[in-house]
């Protein structure tokens, strides 16, 4: 369970979040809607400790992530999969290597096991044929889908999506929305969208 308790955050004196609280239960899919600049991405970054609140706290499974060491925070973060607004794919790597990166880094899988898992993840987002391509060779929708495949590569307990369909055409948006819904059912994850 993710629990945000009364957090406030300001940047250069401008309040972005004021006394925000929310709870995300296990297996729940929660969408946060708001106008541009209202602090949705900031809230999401607080949930994984990428930003620290000026006031309030964030609890992940009862652990206050603002009060633990950096090493412990990294362990907590490994339960998350995050889809960033622009995909945030590593542009020095191919789509395949992007998805393989967390698997190679955090598991002892053999290269064959990595390959099988990556292909399964890419297949999940209907992109099994783009593995060799670099992010610069992919369309916006493809980038988000590869990023989604990367986010689920380690089968996280929680997935956070930051504007997963912004800037995409209606058809691709529907595809991604269906993927998110399908992933929530298939992997039984807790999802936060904005």
């Amino acid at each position, binding site marked *: 369970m993710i629990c945000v308790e009364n957090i406030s955050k300001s940047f250069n004196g401008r309040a972005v979040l004021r006394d925000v609280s929310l709870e995300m239960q296990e297996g729940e899919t929660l969408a946060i809607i708001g106008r541009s600049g209202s602090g949705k991405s900031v809230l999401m*970054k607080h949930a*994984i400790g*990428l930003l620290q609140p000026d006031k309030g706290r964030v609890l992940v499974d009862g652990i206050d992530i603002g009060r633990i060491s*950096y*090493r412990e925070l*990294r*362990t*907590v*973060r*490994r339960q*998350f999969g*995050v889809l*960033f*607004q*622009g995909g*945030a*794919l*590593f*542009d020095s790597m191919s789509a395949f290597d992007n998805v393989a*990166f*967390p698997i190679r*880094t*955090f598991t002892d899988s053999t290269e064959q096991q990595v390959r099988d898992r990556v292909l399964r993840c890419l297949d999940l987002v209907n992109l099994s044929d783009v593995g060799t391509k670099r992010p610069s060779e992919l369309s916006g929708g493809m980038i988000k889908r590869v990023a989604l495949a990367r986010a689920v590569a380690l089968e996280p307990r929680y997935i956070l999506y930051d504007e997963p369909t912004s800037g995409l055409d209606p058809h691709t948006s529907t595809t991604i929305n269906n993927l998110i819904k399908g992933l929530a059912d298939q992997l039984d994850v807790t999802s936060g969208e904005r």
Partner: protein
Amino acid sequence: MAALEQRLIRPLYSLGRYALLLSKGFTSLGHFSVYRKNLIVQCGRVGIDSIPIVALAAAFSGAVTTVQTAYQLVSPFIPPSVIGAVVVPSLILELGAIVTGFILAGRVGARIAAELGTMRVTEQIDALEAMGLNSIGYLIVPRIMAGIIMFPVLYVTAVLVGVGGGLAAAVATDVVSTGEFIRGARENYLVFGPMFGLIKSFVFGFVITSISCYMGYYTEGGAEGVGRSTTQAAVISCVYILLSDLVLALVLL
């Protein structure tokens, strides 16, 4: 008043953040296997890829120093071997390291800052952190290590090529024979010279890569911010190369 306060606090804030960046990078590294590949790649980019430009600059530095020394010193009262006695120690003590330093500040420093800055503004660094990886250790430590490892290699290359360039210029302009040049160099050879140059090259390698990593890692403000970080990385690295050069000369010579 607030502006003055800002001006006074800003450098201290940057220094503190720089120190924290380094300590966070080196104290929570995790398994070396995660960084090994990146370290090898960075050694290639920082070191091997820089050899041609460093060699070119060193060859011309050696040649120009020789020609200018000959212009200033050679007379019937001064033996021509003095050219070798001036040029070779100059390259070992100063030119080999400083020329390499300036080239790396422009070439490697700017590239590191641009790479990390782009990763920052496109949220790639956030993505690494969100995965549970120590982004500082993963991105910054291999670059700094590569700088420390490869700069001495480049320094040695620069000195050897510089001496070659100086000798070639001396022979080509007929101001001194090869034998006289080498005799002058050997007679005035300082045993501590190469050691001093190597110490400088370690320090310069650290200064350039750590400053550039710092500038890139904390980039703000999109493409404009990346441009700003890139320029600042090169300029600030050059300033700190000069400063550390002076400090090392005062302390070690």
